[in-house]
């Protein structure tokens, strides 16, 4: 008969044995029953088709995770087995968790990308246009190395008078993401630049990782100043690329994107000025043509008026001719006046015998003396 043990004694023995043997285990399985209580610790089970293993991931290990564990995810967990006496259970205290199949970073990338996309951080509608001619370009990158040199070289070539302000940061390693995010924030708080380039040269997924971190994505999203991301090579896509207002395939391309070419601008302005002068040169003849047209029309109108008036005048002349007393005289009539010729005599009344009168004919006049006044009633008929 074995010795009778208390539960605590047995548990202590089991704990000693188990924890001694399973100090370091690696186990693969599928996450289920994941619980995330407010404490920040993570509780879940790992299972295969037959068995399940309770796992706990403490907060301090959890914050190091690049990806977010989720039910149904196949993982490899490493840690130690511990006995939890109160419940009489054993569990795996996880200190590292790796997704199975894809790498942790790859998974983390996809997870963050999906989450931020759902939150609307990549929406095209909120992307800002780059300034046409930036007054100052902010560059967040390492102050040493090929990237800044390439950017400055391209700017020198395109627009030698460019104003560049570099905010130097580490572009990889622990804390780099926070520095990058802070640098974007500093440019925004300062306001001395009107476009920001985030740049880093090529590297592995791990090297570029800072640009996949949420803090960088949030800083880009919060920036009032348009941000151009230029991280890695043409084929590398980072979260920063998705949030940025514009993605440049390389740092050099970013420099070309933000700064127009001085030579092209000069050419464009020159072209416009030539065009402007030509338009004026076109406008004046166009107007002189118009003036010619007008004067032509005026001349024609005047000619018409003259013509009309002339015809009218002819009419008047004919009318006058008809009324001309000389014409009447030519027809055989004559006019009798007092000798002084001041007034035509229309009646015998007022005339007296012996008076001298003047008679006007068509071709002259004669002066005669009145011998006798004959009052003729025929004169009355006219009345």
């Amino acid at each position, binding site marked *: 008969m074995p010795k009778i043990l208390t539960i605590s004694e047995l548990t202590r023995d089991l704990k000693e044995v188990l924890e001694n043997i399973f100090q370091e285990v690696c186990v693969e399985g599928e996450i289920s029953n994941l619980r995330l209580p407010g404490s920040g610790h993570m509780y879940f089970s790992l299972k295969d088709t037959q068995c399940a293993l309770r796992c706990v991931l403490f907060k301090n290990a959890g914050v190091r995770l690049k990806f977010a564990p989720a039910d149904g995810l196949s993982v490899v967990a490493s840690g130690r087995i511990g006995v939890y006496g109160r419940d009489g259970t054993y569990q795996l205290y996880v200190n590292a968790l790796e997704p199975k199949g894809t790498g942790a970073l790859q998974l983390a990338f996809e997870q963050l990308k999906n989450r931020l996309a759902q939150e609307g951080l990549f929406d095209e509608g909120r992307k800002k246009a780059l300034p*046409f001619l930036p007054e100052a370009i902010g560059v967040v990158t390492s*102050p*040493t190395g090929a990237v*800044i040199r390439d950017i400055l070289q391209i700017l020198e070539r395109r627009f030698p008078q460019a104003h560049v302000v570099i905010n*130097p940061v580490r572009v990889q390693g622990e804390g780099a993401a926070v520095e990058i995010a802070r640098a974007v924030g500093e440019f925004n708080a300062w306001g001395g630049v009107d476009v920001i380039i985030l740049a880093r040269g090529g590297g592995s997924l791990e090297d570029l990782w800072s640009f996949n971190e949420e803090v960088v994505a949030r800083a880009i999203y919060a920036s009032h100043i348009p941000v151009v991301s230029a991280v890695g090579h043409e084929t590398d896509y980072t979260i920063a690329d998705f949030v940025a207002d514009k993605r440049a395939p390389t740092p050099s391309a970013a420099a070309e994107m933000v700064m127009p070419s001085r030579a092209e601008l000069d050419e*464009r*302005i020159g072209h*416009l000025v030539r065009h402007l002068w030509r338009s004026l040169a*076109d406008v004046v003849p166009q107007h002189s043509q118009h003036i010619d047209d007008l004067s032509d029309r005026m001349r024609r109108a005047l000619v018409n008026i003259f013509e009309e008036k002339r015809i009218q005048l002819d009419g008047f002349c004919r009318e006058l001719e008809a009324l001309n007393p000389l014409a009447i005289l030519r027809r055989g009539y004559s006019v009798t006046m007092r000798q002084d010729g001041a007034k035509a005599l229309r009646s015998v009344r007022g005339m007296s015998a012996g008076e001298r009168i003047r008679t006007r004919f068509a071709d002259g006049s004669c002066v005669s003396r009145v011998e006798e006044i004959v009052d003729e009633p025929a004169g009355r008929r006219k009345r």
Partner: protein
Amino acid sequence: MGFEEDLKKLEKIIDDLHSEKISLEKSIEKFEDGVKLADHCLKTLDGMKKKIEVIAKAKDGKLKIKPFMEEAD
């Protein structure tokens, strides 16, 4: 006013000058505006100065802008 807006305005003026309906007074006025805009654009370009600077953080956390000297790798 923005450089790009100026260029756009200048282009618009040239379009307007080509329109048939514009009066001579108006076209001369527009032409003068165009010359001013072009002049302004060129002055903007000529007024730009090459400056390469770097932000340095002072001990009190304030930003200091200094000329940039490229360091060796």
